[in-house]
C-alpha cells in the first residue's frame, strides 16, 4: 500500500478488472507543476500509515458494498507529472464504486500519516493542509 518505486498503473488496475464487477473507478493523484516546484519529497510513518490505510479500505467495503479496493501511495522523491497515489475500487454498481473511491481518497488525505515537501530552487517547503 506504500511503495518507494514508480507505480505501475496498468498492473494496479488489472487487479480491479474482473467479470465479477461491472464498474471500476480509479483515482490517480499526479505531481502538479505548481509555480516554482521542481519535485516532491514524500515521507510516511510507515506502520501507522499502513494501519490507517487498511482501516479506510475496510470502511469503504462495509459502507459502500464494493467488492474490491486497492490503494497504493508512493513515498520518496517524485518528479512532476509522476503518480503519487492510486485508489481503485470495483463494484457491481457504478455509483458505489464512485462513492467508495472518493471516500478513500478524502479519508486518506485527512487521516493517513504521510507528509509532502515541495522542492524548489531555494530548498523546499512542507505542505501544510491547515
Amino acid at each position: 500500500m506504500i511503495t518507494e518505486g514508480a507505480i505501475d498503473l496498468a498492473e494496479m488496475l488489472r487487479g480491479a478488472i474482473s467479470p465479477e464487477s461491472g464498474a471500476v473507478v480509479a483515482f490517480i493523484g499526479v505531481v502538479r507543476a505548481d509555480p516554482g516546484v521542481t519535485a516532491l519529497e514524500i515521507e510516511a510513518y510507515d506502520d501507522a500509515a499502513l494501519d490507517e490505510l487498511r482501516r479506510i479500505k475496510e470502511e469503504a467495503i462495509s459502507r459502500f458494498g464494493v467488492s474490491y479496493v486497492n490503494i497504493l501511495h508512493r513515498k520518496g522523491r517524485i518528479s512532476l507529472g509522476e503518480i503519487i497515489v492510486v485508489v481503485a475500487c470495483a463494484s457491481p454498481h457504478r455509483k458505489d464504486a464512485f462513492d467508495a473511491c472518493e471516500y478513500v481518497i478524502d479519508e486518506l488525505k485527512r487521516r493517513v500519516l504521510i507528509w509532502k515537501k515541495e522542492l524548489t530552487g531555494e530548498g523546499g517547503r512542507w505542505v501544510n493542509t491547515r
Partner: protein
Amino acid sequence: MKINIRAFAGFREILGREISLEIEEGSNVSDLIERLCRIKPGFRDAVFSETGELRDYVIIMLNRRRLDMPEDLNSPLSDNDEVAIFPPVAGG
C-alpha cells in the same frame, strides 16, 4: 528508561528520523519535550510559541495513539515507549 522518538516532516529535519533517548523513570511527555528542546537546536522554536504555548500544529502520538494537547502532556512514559512528533498530514 529508553524512549524511541520518531519525527516526521519539519520535526524530522530538526530531530532526525528515529532517535532513542535515555530518560529518568517517572518522566512524562512534557519532560521528554523539554529534554529535546535542550539537546536539539531549533526544536523549542518549532514546538512552542513566543508565549510558551505548544503550537497547535504539533501532533504527538504515544505508542501510535494520538494525544490530546495540551492535557495529555502529563501522560507518563514507560520503558521502550514510541513517541511520534509531526505536523498535520498532507498525503495524496
